[in-house]
């Protein structure tokens, strides 16, 4: 069970909002890069986020580039999961590969700063602030296994190959 605060964003948050290409020179310095997380969507995000918070997006969250640095800086910021109405495909796969859960549910029912309880096993989101209870759609089994191992690299370290 994950518990934390919702930090709400709108639709179409791109990888350039999350971590823009102009900061490519900081990619080998992750602590420095991570200070800019979500900067072009919310310049105050890095100071606002606290460990355990959830990023709650609208539709097509994470569209754009394949840069894995986007979910990586979100993970480094302490965010425990991303909730959105829909998520761009590469971002989705990248986040799971880093062990960062991405949950598809009707985020219109969640407001900024709401307190949430996420049950990954039951597939539910409990909005404690407004009493709404949401279910999120199923994640493909192979991704659940990768998530269980904490990401793709630990998964490969353990299994040496894809076990489908």
């Amino acid at each position, binding site marked *: 069970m994950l518990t934390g605060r919702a930090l709400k964003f709108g639709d179409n948050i791109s990888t350039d909002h999350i971590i823009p290409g*102009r900061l490519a020179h900081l990619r080998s310095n992750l602590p420095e890069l991570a200070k800019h997380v979500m900067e072009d969507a919310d310049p105050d995000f890095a100071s606002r986020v606290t460990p355990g918070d959830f990023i709650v997006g609208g539709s097509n969250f994470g569209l754009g580039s*394949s840069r894995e640095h986007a979910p990586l800086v979100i993970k480094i910021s302490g965010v425990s999961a991303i909730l959105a109405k829909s998520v761009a495909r590469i971002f989705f796969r990248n986040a799971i590969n880093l062990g960062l859960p991405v949950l598809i549910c009707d985020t219109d029912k969640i407001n900024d700063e709401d307190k949430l309880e996420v049950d990954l096993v039951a597939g539910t989101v409990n909005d404690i602030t407004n009493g709404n209870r949401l279910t999120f759609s199923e994640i493909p089994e192979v991704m659940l296994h990768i998530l269980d191992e904490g990401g793709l690299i630990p998964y490969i370290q353990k299994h040496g190959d894809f076990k489908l």
Partner: protein
Amino acid sequence: MGKTLAEKILSQKSGSDARAGSIVVAEVALVFAQDTTGPLTVTQFQASGFQNLANPNKTALFLDHAAPSPNYRLSSEHILLRQFAQQTGCLIFDIGDGICHQLVAESLAKPGDVVIGADSHTVTAGGLGAFATGMGSSDVAVAFGLGKTWFRVPESIKVVVSGNFVEGVYAKDLILHLIGNIGANGATYRALEFSGDTVDRMSMSQRFTIANMAVEAGAKAGLFPADNITKDYLISQGRGNHYQPVFPDADATYEQIININVAELEPTVSKPNTVDNIALAGELKGTKIQQVFIGTCTNGRLEDLAVAANILKGKKRHPDTRLIVAPASRQVLLAAIEAGYIQSLIEAEAVILPPGCGACLGLHQGVLGDGESCLSTANRNFKGRMGNPQASIYLGSPATAAATAITGEITDPREVI
């Protein structure tokens, strides 16, 4: 039951009956990363415990995004990638060779291949009839080591394109129109499969432009059949032996069929800050533009430079509008010199950048100032994309870009040709 292009290619490369929705593990014919995603790929490759590449001659690194490097940190990343190539024996393309997707199209990908790259526009090779898709560094690192990866076989949307383009309208206008209609989320997780009489006549350059932007509708792949035009292209690249016909089955199942008659299209532009925010170029007349950028993996090919050069020949850029041109590869640059296009562009006061990504992602060579607007032939206009969140980006065809460079405001190219 028949198969879509995606199902056919993934069936063949996974040795299983791949159907939309199923999960398969497929061999990759080519796996690559570029200079902004490559360093993390190398880190993840090493963290996974791999010592060797599964197939060094099917693994490639490209130094194209920051080429030549604008600062010492990126120079160090280049050193790391060159060392990795030397240690593992993989292919490496250095600064000045060109943009990864263009080089993959020119010399590496084959019809029927599965290609993955740590860059979202890997979909470009779909123009050749390859199932090509972008992934992140971890997935690509694992494919470096295993020579394969897992896929969820996508549902397909069939786009049937018919009719003849009117003057001043190009493949770029078609794909912007399509994305504007289905939305930036309209094909998420799907393959966009193109067919129809217009596609049967379409040049490879235009097919690459369309396949390249499939990802801007969220698609996992943008697929074209591999026909005689593909064959002729491969022969012209000295690799006719790489051709094999690849077509979908006539009775394949599609989630949706979209019909477009290109004769009805007009020059189209994406307005800031999403690609699906389209308007006709003519409707945006009066929008002042401080920089025009012609290039990228979307529209930096010889045909694109030809269109721009023919419009700009004997004319000059507007005094308030900078004009920057980046050929997609060395081959494109050399051919454009030979054809006289570079001469015409320079005489029109264009700045010619070395082959590579140039100003596309805001790292160097054409970063926008506060409040400035750019008309670019690239594929993305997200806030901050060209290095400044206080700037605006409009996307259009090379013809619209050239016309805009002349007038200094967004212009329907039919007004100047």
